[in-house]
């Protein structure tokens, strides 16, 4: 299993906690997925409601590691403050760093991301940057102290899968020793299997499970796909080729 900073994780599947039909379905989905890490956020509680407190009790009962995010932040300053609040709230140095650059695509702002990652690393955070597959951006993130990279597969919530296979493959080849997680854009278990087959260490998803007609079954399907993909990657897949090659021996065929 991959090691994120100094923690060896228990599963290659990381699961978000938003958009489930109910808290009970969220909990069942987690149990069936075997996911060892749950992403969470920090938000206002409306009026005197206790939704946040109830949610925290539910997550604690799951017994998984928590990865807080800075979702919705559009500047490094906002993301840094959000991360500081999340660290105190969840008692962890881990932070899934999101600095969003565009409202339509929710793609990362690479400049703000590097800026925030540098400040947070300096402040003792262990940063999991939500980034694109841009090699130069990823090099900068590593230079400022990131020891995990989380390139997107496709824009958040689209379910389009791996949009830039070449870029993701290049990233894997360029950073053989840095844990790489495909974060965002996965829609089907086959997308997760594909990421694992390419040698990625883990996948992080939310909408594909939470918005499925049966989130619990889909959570299990993703777990199996991740396991199959990781097994395949370790089994040294054959090289693809353009021309056909018979699998049944030609030698010994009767001449009829």
């Amino acid at each position: 299993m991959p090691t994120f900073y100094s923690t060896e994780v228990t599963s290659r599947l990381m699961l978000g906690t938003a958009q489930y039909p109910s808290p009970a379905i969220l909990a069942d989905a987690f149990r069936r997925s075997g996911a060892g890490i749950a992403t969470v956020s920090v938000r206002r509680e409306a009026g005197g409601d206790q939704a946040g407190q109830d949610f925290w009790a539910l997550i604690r009962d799951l017994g998984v590691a928590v990865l807080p995010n800075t979702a919705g932040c559009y500047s490094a300053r906002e993301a840094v403050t959000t991360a500081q609040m999340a660290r105190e709230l969840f008692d962890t140095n881990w932070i899934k760093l999101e600095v969003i650059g565009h409202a339509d695509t929710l793609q990362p702002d690479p400049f703000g991301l590097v800026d925030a990652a540098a400040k947070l690393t300096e402040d003792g955070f262990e940063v999991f940057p939500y980034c694109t597959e841009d090699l130069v951006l990823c090099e900068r993130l590593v230079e400022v102290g990131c020891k995990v990279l989380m390139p997107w597969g496709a824009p958040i919530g689209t379910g389009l899968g791996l949009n830039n296979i070449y870029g993701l493959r290049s990233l894997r080849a360029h950073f053989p020793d840095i844990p790489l997680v495909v974060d965002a854009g996965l829609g089907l278990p086959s997308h997760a299997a594909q990421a694992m087959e390419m040698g990625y260490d883990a996948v992080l998803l939310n909408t594909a499970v939470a918005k499925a007609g049966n989130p619990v079954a889909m959570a299990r399907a993703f777990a199996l796909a991740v396991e199959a993909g990781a097994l395949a990657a370790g089994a040294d897949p054959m090289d693809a080729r353009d021309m056909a090659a018979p699998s049944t021996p030609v030698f010994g065929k009767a001449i009829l």
Partner: protein
Amino acid sequence: MKIIVNGEALEIRAPTLAALLEELGKGDAKVATSVNEAFVSKTQRADHTLHEGDRVEILAPRQGG
């Protein structure tokens, strides 16, 4: 004095951030705080004096992706 809490204008009596949480019934709640866009840790709340027009954020654990 009038301050802004989570985007809403409130008339409060509390002189400090810790007192504000008590006044709002969140003294024991699992929350994190900021004032005027700067993080204020739990241990700093009792010493953090509030001023007219301050913008306070009180955040709780929530679902996230």
